[in-house]
């Protein structure tokens, strides 16, 4: 995992991607007890092209040059299937902006704050997101004030209340 994170840092250094942060299940894992998961979800900023469109081609091309090829929706980086998720809406952009710098071994990396992981899971709304919200609610040191503000600003209060039943 440390090597994979090193590759992500290298992509940032080269300007292929902007800021990135670990999200999804592996992001939640930073705050909770370990559970089984198979993907490493990476939220990433990619600068739009001249036409205002965001293309993953430069990223995939750079990874290919480094010897890492796509496998389905993921790219195998140092033995780990990495799925890149371009910050796709205001919530994801803010979550990435607010991500936390951490160390993994000797390598610097970033993880989404627990409150944003909850909000993104609420917004995504799948059964496994509901389980993730439950896990984070029970085990993560959630900042209730921050979470409350995010829920209201992104219209997620109703689902939060429904899922808490």
């Amino acid at each position: 995992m440390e090597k994979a994170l090193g590759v992500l840092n290298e992509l940032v250094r080269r300007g292929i991607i902007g800021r990135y942060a670990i999200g999804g299940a592996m992001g939640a894992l930073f705050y909770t007890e370990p559970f089984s998961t198979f993907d490493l979800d990476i939220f990433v900023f990619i600068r739009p092209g001249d036409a205002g469109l965001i293309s993953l081609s430069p990223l995939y091309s750079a990874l290919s040059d480094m010897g890492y090829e796509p496998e389905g929706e993921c790219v195998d980086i140092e033995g780990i299937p990495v799925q890149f998720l371009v910050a796709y809406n205001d919530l994801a952009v803010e979550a990435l902006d607010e991500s936390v710098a951490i160390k993994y071994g000797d390598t610097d990396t970033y993880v989404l704050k627990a409150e944003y992981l909850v909000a993104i899971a609420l917004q995504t709304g799948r059964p496994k997101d509901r389980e993730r919200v439950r896990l984070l609610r029970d085990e993560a040191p959630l900042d209730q004030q921050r979470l409350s503000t995010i829920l209201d600003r992104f219209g997620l209060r109703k689902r939060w209340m429904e899922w808490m039943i």
Partner: protein
Amino acid sequence: MDDMMWNLDEALQAKEERRRLLSALSYKEKVKIVIRLQEMAVPLLLAQGRKVSVWKTED
């Protein structure tokens, strides 16, 4: 019956304590456990037709 109730309570407390300890592990330690969990889950998931594999990572 009281003994049984007491034991159940103790077991739940122990489970909660274990959960708290696991949550407090370093990220790297948690990832090691994830990989161990993958090793246990992969045969079952492959039998269900899911395409998954254990992370081939050194840490």
